C-alpha cells in the first residue's frame, strides 16, 4: 500500500492531506473536497481500484464538519482504501462523481436526501430516498434530528422522465404488486409490447434502519441487521458483526469461523432454490417451481433443526456463533445435504431439457458486460455478464481463505446465464458445506468480548446470495455506535434492471425481475 500512497502523492501533490491505517485491512486517505474527482480517477484508472460505496456522516460535534467516506476495493492486495473528505455546514456542496462514475449516482442522491449536502453538478438531482411528501428541510441522518418525531406531510410531486411520440404509452406498476412480493413502483414506456424505457421508483419500504442503529448495543444492532433483508438475514448479520469485531478487535475462534461458512452457505442454498423456482414459475412451468419450493422447504427445516430459526436469525453473536453443530450431528447433516443434492440434481437435469422454459429464458433481459461494469453491478447478476467478482475469494472473510471453491462466470448476461450461475453456485455451496464441516477444528464458539475503540470506523462485508454486502460502522468518542451505513447488493443492482428490460416485451418483465431477484427492503432500508 505504501507504493500506492507514494504514487498518489506524486500525482496529486497537495491534495492528499493525511494517510493512516485503520483496524483491519483498511487504509484511510484524507483529501481536500475539490480533489475528490481527480483522486477517484487516479485510483480507478491507474490502480484499477473499484468504487464500492459512499457513506456520509454528521460529525459536526466531533470536528465541526460533515464527513464523506468513499470506499474503494483494491483486490490486488486484498485491501480497502477509504478516501475521506470534509464538507462544511456553511458550504454544503461536494463535487458529484456521477458523470465520471455513473454508479455513484444513487449514492450521492442518498447523501443529499438524508444529510442535506448538495452534490454539485449531479445529472439527476431529484429526490431518491424520501418521497415528495416529506418537508424540504428534514434530513434524518443529521445528529440534531429526533428519530421519534412524527413528520408532517406536505404537498409535492415527483416528475417521471417521459418518452413521447406517436403510439407510446405508459404503464405504471406498483407499489402494491400482483404477486407476493415487496413494494416498489415501475413506470414503463412502451410501444406495443416492446419496452422503450423503464424508470424505477423505490424506497417505499424505507424504515430509517440506519438511524435506528445509532446508539444501539451490539446485540440489538445485530437483531436489526438481521431484519434488513429477511431472506439474507445471516449475510447482513455476519457483515455487521465483522465490522463490530474490527471495532472491538475481537478474536473470533476458528470453529466459529467455519460454522459461519456452513450457515452462510445454507442461506445461499435456500435463496438460490427459491430464485430458480421463481424463474420456473414465471414461465408457467409449475413442475420446476413446486419441486424446488419443496427442496427449499426441506432446507428451511434443516436450518431450523440446526439453528432454531428458519431464516437463520439469531445465529451470529459478537465474537462467534450461538448454535454449534456437534460431532454427532455432522454425519447426519452431510447425509441430509447429500439427499438434497441428489434431489436438486434430478430436477435441474429435467429443467434444462424443457423447451417451454428454455425458449423464454434464452436472450431475455440481456445485460451487457460494459453496462454492468459502469453501473457497479455485483453478485450473480455481474457474474452472469462476464464479470469475475466474488468477495469470498477476492477479500476472504470467515473461513473462506481455508476452503477451495470455484466462482462460476457466464458471458451472455441473459436470464439463462443468471440461472446457470445460480445453479452452479448451488453445487459449490454443497461442496463448501461438506468441506467446512470436515475441516472444522474443535474449540470454543465465541471469543472474548471487548469494548469498542472510540472514534474509529470499521468495515464488515460478506458475499450474500445477492452479491456484495457491506456494513460500515463508526463509533463516537465513548465507543458508542454513531453511524451505521448498510450497502446492500440490491442498492447496487437495482439501476441495472432499467437496462436489462430494454427492447424486451412487457410480459417478460416479471421473469427478468425474478432472475435478478433484488430485495426492496435491503435497497430501501
Amino acid at each position: 500500500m505504501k507504493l500506492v500512497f507514494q504514487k498518489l502523492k506524486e500525482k496529486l501533490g497537495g491534495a492528499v492531506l493525511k494517510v493512516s491505517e485503520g483496524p483491519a485491512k483498511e487504509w484511510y486517505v484524507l483529501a481536500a473536497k475539490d480533489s475528490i474527482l481527480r483522486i477517484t480517477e487516479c485510483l480507478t484508472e491507474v490502480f484499477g481500484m473499484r468504487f464500492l460505496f459512499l457513506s456520509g456522516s454528521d460529525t459536526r460535534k466531533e470536528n465541526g464538519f460533515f464527513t464523506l467516506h468513499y470506499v474503494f476495493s483494491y483486490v490486488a492486495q486484498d485491501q480497502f482504501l477509504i478516501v475521506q473528505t470534509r464538507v462544511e455546514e456553511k458550504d454544503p456542496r461536494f463535487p458529484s462523481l456521477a458523470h465520471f462514475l455513473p454508479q455513484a449516482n444513487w449514492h450521492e442522491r442518498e447523501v443529499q436526501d438524508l444529510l442535506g449536502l448538495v452534490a454539485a453538478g449531479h445529472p439527476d438531482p431529484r429526490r431518491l430516498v424520501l418521497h415528495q411528501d416529506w418537508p424540504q428541510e428534514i434530513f434524518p441522518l443529521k445528529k440534531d434530528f429526533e428519530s421519534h418525531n412524527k413528520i408532517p406531510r406536505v404537498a409535492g410531486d415527483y416528475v417521471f422522465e417521459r418518452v413521447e411520440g406517436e403510439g407510446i404509452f405508459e404503464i405504471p406498476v406498483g407499489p402494491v404488486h400482483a404477486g407476493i412480493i415487496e413494494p416498489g413502483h415501475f413506470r414503463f414506456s412502451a410501444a406495443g409490447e416492446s419496452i422503450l424505457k423503464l424508470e424505477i421508483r423505490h424506497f417505499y419500504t424505507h424504515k430509517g434502519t440506519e438511524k435506528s442503529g445509532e446508539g444501539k448495543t451490539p446485540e440489538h444492532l445485530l437483531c436489526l441487521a438481521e431484519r434488513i433483508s429477511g431472506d439474507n438475514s445471516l449475510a447482513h448479520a455476519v457483515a455487521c458483526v465483522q465490522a463490530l469485531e474490527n471495532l472491538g478487535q475481537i478474536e473470533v475462534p476458528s470453529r466459529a469461523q467455519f460454522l459461519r461458512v456452513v450457515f452462510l452457505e445454507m442461506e445461499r442454498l435456500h435463496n438460490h432454490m427459491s430464485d430458480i423456482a421463481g424463474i420456473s414459475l414465471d414461465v408457467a412451468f409449475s413442475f420446476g417451481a413446486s419441486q424446488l419450493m419443496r427442496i427449499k422447504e426441506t432446507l428451511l427445516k434443516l436450518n431450523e433443526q440446526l439453528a432454531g430459526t428458519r431464516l437463520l436469525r439469531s445465529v451470529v453473536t459478537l465474537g462467534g456463533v450461538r448454535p454449534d453443530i456437534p460431532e454427532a450431528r455432522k454425519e447426519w447433516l452431510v447425509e441430509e445435504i447429500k439427499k438434497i443434492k441428489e434431489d436438486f440434481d434430478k430436477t435441474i437435469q429435467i429443467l434444462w431439457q424443457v423447451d417451454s422454459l428454455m425458449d423464454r429464458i434464452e436472450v431475455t433481459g440481456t445485460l451487457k458486460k460494459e453496462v454492468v461494469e459502469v453501473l457497479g453491478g455485483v453478485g450473480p447478476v455481474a457474474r452472469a455478464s462476464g464479470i469475475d467478482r466474488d468477495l469470498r475469494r477476492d477479500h476472504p472473510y470467515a473461513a473462506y481463505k481455508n476452503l477451495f471453491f470455484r466462482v462460476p462466470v457466464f458471458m451472455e448476461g441473459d436470464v439463462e446465464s443468471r440461472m446457470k450461475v445460480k445453479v452452479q453456485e448451488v453445487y459449490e455451496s454443497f461442496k463448501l458445506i461438506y468441506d467446512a464441516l470436515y475441516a472444522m477444528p474443535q474449540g470454543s464458539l465465541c471469543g472474548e468480548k471487548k469494548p469498542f475503540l472510540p472514534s474509529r470506523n470499521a468495515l464488515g462485508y460478506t458475499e450474500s446470495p445477492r452479491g456484495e454486502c457491506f456494513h460500515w460502522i463508526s463509533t463516537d468518542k465513548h465507543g458508542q455506535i454513531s453511524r451505521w451505513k448498510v450497502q446492500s447488493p440490491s442498492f447496487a443492482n437495482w439501476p441495472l434492471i432499467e437496462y436489462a428490460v430494454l427492447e424486451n416485451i412487457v410480459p417478460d418483465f416479471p421473469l427478468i425481475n425474478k432472475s435478478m431477484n433484488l430485495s426492496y427492503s435491503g435497497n430501501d432500508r
Partner: protein
Amino acid sequence: MFRILKKNIETGKVTIPYPPPAGKTPEGFLGAPEIDPAKCTGCGKCIASCPTQALTMADRLTENKRFFHLSYGDCIFCGLCGPVCPHQAISFNGKYNFAARTKKELRLEFSFSLPECRKDTAFIPHDALPLKERKEDSQGFMRGDFADRLSIEETGLKLKDKIQRLFGRSLHIREVDAGSCNGCEVEIVNLSNPVYDTERFGVHFVASPRHADMLLVTGPVTRQMELALVKTYEATASPKLVVACGTCAISGGMFDRNYAVVGGVDRSVPVDVYIPGCPPRPEAILHGIFLALDKIPAVKKD
C-alpha cells in the same frame, strides 16, 4: 415428459396434515419465550436484553408491587433474554401458534411483591431499567395520517355472521407488504408450496384487492407505504377482513419509534387478527387466517 412423471411419482405426497398433531412442536425451533412464574423473582435482568421492549417492568410503590409484562406482539423471538436470566425462568420450547383477535390476548402480566424482589442479588431498581416512554404515550403516532379517510361504516360495523356465511367455503387473500423485511413474504410464499398447500382449504392468494376477502398485511407500515395500504383497503370489497402478519405488523417490532415508520397496521386500518412471529411459521399464519374466519379446525390453542 416421462422424466417429469417419474420424478413426480418418486417424490410422492409431501403435503403435511393440518392442523399439526397436538402437542408436537417443530424439531429445534426456538419459538417464543415462556416464563415460569414459579422461578421468576422479578429481578429485572432480562429487561435490558430485549431489543424491542417486549419485556417490561413497572414498579407501583403505592401497592409495593412490581409488575412484569411480556408482550408477544412485540417479541421478535430472538432468544436474547433466555441466557440472561439468573434463575433459568425463561425457556424456549418452540411455541409459535398463538394468533389472537386482540393485542391484549398477546400480553402476559405477573406481579411480584417489591420487598421480595429486592432480596434477590440480581435485583435491578426501577430507575436503572431501560424503561423508555411507552409507545402509547408518544404524541402523534397514535393514528396514521390516512386513517381519517375511512368512514365509520368501514371501520366500525363488522358484520361477523355475514362474513362467516360468505367466506365459509373459500377465501381469497390479497397480500400487502407495508414495509416488511421480506421475511414474512418468504413464509407466505411457502404457504403455497406442496408441503403446506393452502389451496386444499380453499385459501387462495389473488392478484388484486378487488378480488379479495381478506388482506394479509406484513411490515411496520412505513410512512411511504401508508397511503398505498389505505387505498388497497378501500379497494377491497366489503365485508372484508384484515390480518396483521408478523411482529412488525402488530407493533412495529424492531422498527418502532422511528421517523419513517407508522408502527403497526392497526394505526392505519382496522385489524381483525394479529399473528405474532418474526417471521411467523407457515402453520402459524394459517392458524391466524382460520382464526379470522372463526373456522379453527380442532387445534389446541396453547
